[in-house]
């Protein structure tokens, strides 16, 4: 019999339909997971790109400004330019033409704006300010309907009038919205008395009242006060109104203001809906090029000055996506290896069930290639349709399916059964006799031991190498998908540690057996004897322990991410709520803080002056850091009411005799350390000497912070008017909101929610949970398979013990006791290993990129969850296995044991 024997193939498949279906199920589920994850990651990256650009809003907009050209006339006065509106429109076209086509396609149509300074309305009533605006979209809009009066027209019939430089205020006409006009009580023809901060008057007359054709036109968002009064925009309680300039009145506005009082710009809003991750990458380089050109042309006054944070937004996003991809790869590898181990265990079970038939086939002349081919046909017939089904489901779920991971998994799965079976057949008929003399036997035994040790050392060395590579190189900085060996570090670490544990297991069960021999309880002895007999089987215990360790690793990553998000939100806000007011409102900050402090549900409030990117000099090196000028004693009390790190004793921050300002410092590159002397340059060409006396807490995003006490700063002549209010307590956000202050309110809850729902973070957290669940299921499945593989021997032993008088219920206990060691090792060591792996890899896995933390997230091991879930799950499976086996045993006559040939 050297050819294929189809009846044998069919017969084996029929007899072992259960295990084969199990393999198919595992392959299908894994194919769904690893087939769907890459396309889902791609779509999540696209979504994250859109989300990041949407959230960045103003930062993602591309703005271009250009100085006005000189408008001096032939007699030295200023010359009216009647076609100024066309020039502004031309600026839009010019800017659009400068854009890279890829970038242009990702941006919305430009809106050109001309904005005046904000002027005080001097009608003696409440504080009101007027700002004149000219808006122009590509279509000439936004369109308005004049419901009273007429559109602003020219102030002079002489279109090319030339006015003296220091003449009377040049008249200009504006339009008011219905709402603005109603509040101002202005009607067409009325003059609005306004003056700038230097009390220079301006001649502004209302020509008409308008109504927007489409109030939702995005162009209005650039100057919302044109449509309705904007309350407290400057934080001083004033109300801002907008005066609309027309094509005809714009030239007069140009003459009425100095060049530096009227700003022209073009804004291109990014269109998130047109962005994908791939297009965003091209965009980032286009934006960088654009900004580079802008810098080169900075000296030409009328040249285009580009400004945008889009490249920075995309750079941050790129880092996040690379990190998320790498972490997804890490998790997928854990599931793949867990599944491969379970498939191998199933192949081992199949081989044990078929041992006799395979031996018989060999004895009847079947060649090993023929047996291997038969088993391969069966294996392929099971695995390929299952993988195809899984991929189809993945495509249905994710829109497409990736075969990158599925193919190697499928190959290994299809090879496992034939490999185990062929090896068993070869061993069954191998003419290998034990050497006759003792030294030869010892030599053979030592050779086997050496081979085993070599394999163990290789696995451990690989795992250590991968962990070292991961810790040294990290994982988030590499390109997407190209994560190599470091990504396998947790998986290899779990395998190596589980392997070493399994090598110790026989010693453990041997020790337990020795103890049991001293026991007077026979069941303990029998269980220990059975456990010792099966402890040398490596694959079952390795599968179960490694799978549970990896499940614990995934669940620890999840808990760490969750805690990191919470900590990151605390750090980003600095309290439960933070109000950032503009420089114009600096004077009202203390009053606002007083109102907030008096509100219910507020436990601590502190005001501070926070200056972003302040320049410091240390050792001739310029350092940009966030400067926080705060009452350090109050700040310390506030931090004490939060989970944030506390502040050192503020006594050391008091002013020194030599005028040096003591400061707490924190820099990402360590350029400022306690003990460092540095200085803060002032505009007056002088500098304030400073000394770093301790470590500052992380305040807000970024890692470069310098904290000084407000009293010391004031004494040193440093600007200290507060512009930030921090408040803690459950009612902090509401209390700030209730003040009506128009600054930017940031709440911790809001930041946390925003970060938790960010597509990448939410997707990765989901994947962590899925991986943990899948690995737990694989571990339990492995345990059940291991029990099934040893069930025949267990039945035989228990049956023989029954013939010696063991009662049926005691047989259950012995069976449970035999299976207990693997379960105990998995329940006790699995979570420990997972926690250890997480502790070793949380930093290089760059979780902080997703949690938004400055520091490495604190590794959170959910001991209770991990241990309790594992314990309950294993107890349930153990009970089910023992009950099922008992039921099967009942169906089998005890007398059959007399016929069993060992």
């Amino acid at each position, binding site marked *: 019999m050297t050819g294929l024997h189809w009846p044998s193939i069919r017969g084996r498949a029929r007899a072992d339909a259960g295990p084969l279906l199990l393999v198919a199920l595992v392959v299908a589920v894994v194919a769904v997971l690893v087939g769907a994850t890459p396309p889902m990651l791609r779509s999540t990256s696209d979504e994250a790109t859109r989300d990041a650009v949407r959230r960045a809003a103003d930062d993602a907009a591309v703005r271009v400004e250009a100085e006005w050209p000189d408008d001096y006339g032939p007699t030295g006065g200023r010359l009216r330019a009647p076609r100024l509106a066309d020039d502004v429109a031309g600026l839009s076209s010019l800017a659009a033409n400068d854009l890279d086509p890829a970038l242009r396609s990702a941006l919305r149509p430009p809106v050109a704006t001309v904005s005046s300074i904000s002027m005080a309305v001097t009608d003696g009533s409440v504080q009101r300010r007027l700002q004149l605006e000219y808006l122009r979209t590509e279509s000439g809009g936004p369109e308005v309907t004049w419901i009273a009066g007429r559109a602003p027209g020219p102030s002079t019939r002489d279109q090319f009038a030339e006015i003296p430089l220091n003449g009377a205020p040049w008249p200009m006409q504006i339009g008011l919205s219905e709402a603005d006009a109603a509040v101002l009580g202005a009607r067409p023809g009325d003059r609005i008395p306004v003056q700038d901060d230097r009390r220079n008057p301006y001649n502004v007359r209302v020509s008409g009242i308008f109504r927007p054709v489409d109030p939702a036109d995005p162009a209005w968002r650039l100057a919302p006060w044109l449509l309705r009064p904007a309350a407290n925009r400057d934080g001083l309680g004033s109300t801002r109104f907008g005066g609309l300039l027309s094509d005809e009145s714009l030239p007069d506005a140009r003459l009425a203001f100095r060049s530096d009082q009227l700003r022209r710009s073009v804004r291109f809003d990014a269109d998130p809906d047109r962005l994908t991750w791939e297009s965003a990458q091209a965009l980032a380089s286009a934006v960088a090029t654009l900004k580079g050109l802008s810098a080169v042309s900075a000296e030409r006054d009328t040249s285009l000055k580009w400004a945008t944070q889009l490249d920075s937004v995309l750079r941050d996003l790129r880092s996040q996506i690379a990190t998320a991809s790498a972490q997804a790869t890490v998790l997928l590898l854990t599931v793949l290896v867990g599944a491969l181990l379970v498939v191998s265990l199933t192949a081992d079970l199949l081989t044990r069930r078929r041992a006799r038939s395979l031996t018989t086939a060999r004895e009847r002349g079947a060649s090993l290639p023929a047996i291997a081919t038969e088993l391969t046909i069966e294996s392929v017939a099971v695995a390929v349709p299952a993988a195809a089904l899984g991929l189809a489901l993945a495509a249905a779920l994710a829109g497409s399916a990736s075969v990158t991971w599925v193919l190697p998994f499928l190959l290994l799965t299809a090879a496992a059964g034939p490999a185990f079976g062929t090896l068993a057949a070869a061993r069954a008929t191998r003419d290998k006799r034990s050497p006759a003399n003792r030294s030869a036997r010892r030599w053979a035994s030592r050779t086997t031991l050496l081979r085993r040790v070599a394999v163990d050392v290789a696995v451990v060395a690989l795992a250590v190498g991968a962990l070292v590579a991961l810790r040294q190189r990290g994982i988030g900085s590499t390109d997407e998908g190209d994560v190599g060996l470091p990504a396998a570090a947790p998986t290899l670490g779990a395998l190596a540690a589980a392997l070493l544990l399994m090598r110790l297991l026989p010693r453990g069960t041997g020790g337990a057996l020795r103890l049991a021999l001293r026991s007077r309880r026979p069941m303990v002895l029998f269980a220990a*004897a059975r456990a010792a007999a099966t402890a040398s089987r490596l694959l079952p215990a390795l599968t179960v322990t490694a799978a549970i360790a990896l499940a614990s690793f995934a669940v620890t990553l999840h808990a760490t991410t969750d805690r990191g998000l919470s900590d990151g939100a605390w750090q980003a806000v600095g309290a439960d709520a933070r109000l950032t007011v503009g420089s114009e409102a600096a004077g009202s900050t203390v009053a606002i803080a007083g109102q907030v402090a008096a509100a219910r549900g507020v436990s601590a409030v502190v005001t501070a002056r926070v200056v972003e990117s302040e320049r410091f000099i240390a050792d001739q090196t310029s350092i940009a850091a966030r400067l926080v000028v705060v009452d350090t004693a109050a700040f310390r009390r506030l931090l004490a009411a939060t989970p944030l790190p506390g502040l050192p004793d503020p006594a050391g921050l008091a002013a020194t005799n030599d005028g040096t300002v003591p400061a707490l410092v924190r820099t990402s590159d360590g350029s400022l350390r306690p003990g460092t002397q540095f200085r803060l340059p002032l505009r007056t060409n002088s500098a304030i000497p400073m000394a770093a006396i301790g470590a500052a807490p992380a305040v807000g995003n970024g890692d470069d912070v310098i904290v000084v006490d407000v009293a010391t700063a004031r004494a040193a002549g440093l600007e200290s008017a507060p512009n930030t209010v921090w408040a803690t307590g459950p009612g902090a956000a509401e209390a700030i909101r209730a003040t009506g202050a128009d600054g930017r309110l940031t709440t911790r809850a809001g930041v946390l929610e925003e970060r938790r729902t960010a597509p990448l973070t939410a997707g990765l957290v989901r994947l962590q949970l899925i991986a943990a669940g899948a690995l737990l299921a694989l571990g339990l499945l492995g345990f059940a398979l291991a029990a099934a593989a040893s069930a025949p021997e267990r039945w035989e032993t228990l049956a023989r013990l029954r013939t010696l008088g063991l*009662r*049926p219920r005691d047989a259950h206990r012995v069976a449970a006791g035999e299976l207990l060691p693997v379960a105990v090792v998995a329940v006790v060591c699995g979570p420990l290993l997972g926690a250890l792996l997480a502790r070793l890899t949380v930093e290089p896995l760059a979780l902080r990129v997703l949690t938004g933390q400055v520091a490495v997230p604190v590794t959170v091991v959910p001991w209770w969850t991990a241990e309790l879930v594992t314990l309950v799950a294993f107890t349930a499976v153990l009970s089910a296995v023992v009950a099922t086996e008992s039921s099967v045993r009942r169906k089998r006559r*005890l007398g059959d044991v007399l*016929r069993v040939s060992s």
Partner: protein
Amino acid sequence: MTGALLTVRGVNRTFGSGAGAVHALRDVSFDVEPGTMVALVGRSGSGKTTLLNVIGGLDRPDAGSVVVDGLEVTGLDEDGLSQLRRDRVSYVFQTFGLIPVLSAAENVGVPLRLARSEPAGRERRVNLLLDLVGLADHAQQRPGELSGGQQQRVAIARALAASPRLLIADEPTGQLDAETGLAVMGLLRGVVESEGVTAVVATHDPVMMALADRVIQISDGRVPAC
């Protein structure tokens, strides 16, 4: 039947039903006197093992009764049968059935542990039995370190450990070479005499038949009237 250690009366055992039913035992009846060694002889499939199973309570007959040492076996529940096997009936298997990770002495002590014997008494009994079967020097060796014949001797010692009244052996020399088989048979004969135990041994071996006090022929599930 007064005085018989084992009484089998009208035992029937059928496997399956309908046309495919196999009548393994048909109205089997016989008695075995205490302290005798009975050889149960018959061709393969004649019902020897089924009969041994029924006698030892490993299987239940469809009809008939089995009385061992005055105890009606067929009326016992599972716990009762376990008690029977612990106290009165023991087995010697063709394949030895030793626990591989326990030494010879520990294997012999298993029935005594089940009977909750005192450790000191257990040790004495184990040593005695190992001495009886000629394996006192191999007490600490594991089954894998013993030859087939030695393993079967350990199995016989284990079977005798709890001082059973009835020893049931199913082809005890089936896996041994002729010389070793002969030694094991001799041992069985010896322990029957020295321990006063009654033995029912299923065998094909004519030597064993010669050593037995009585031979019961079984054919197609029937035992000729004795």
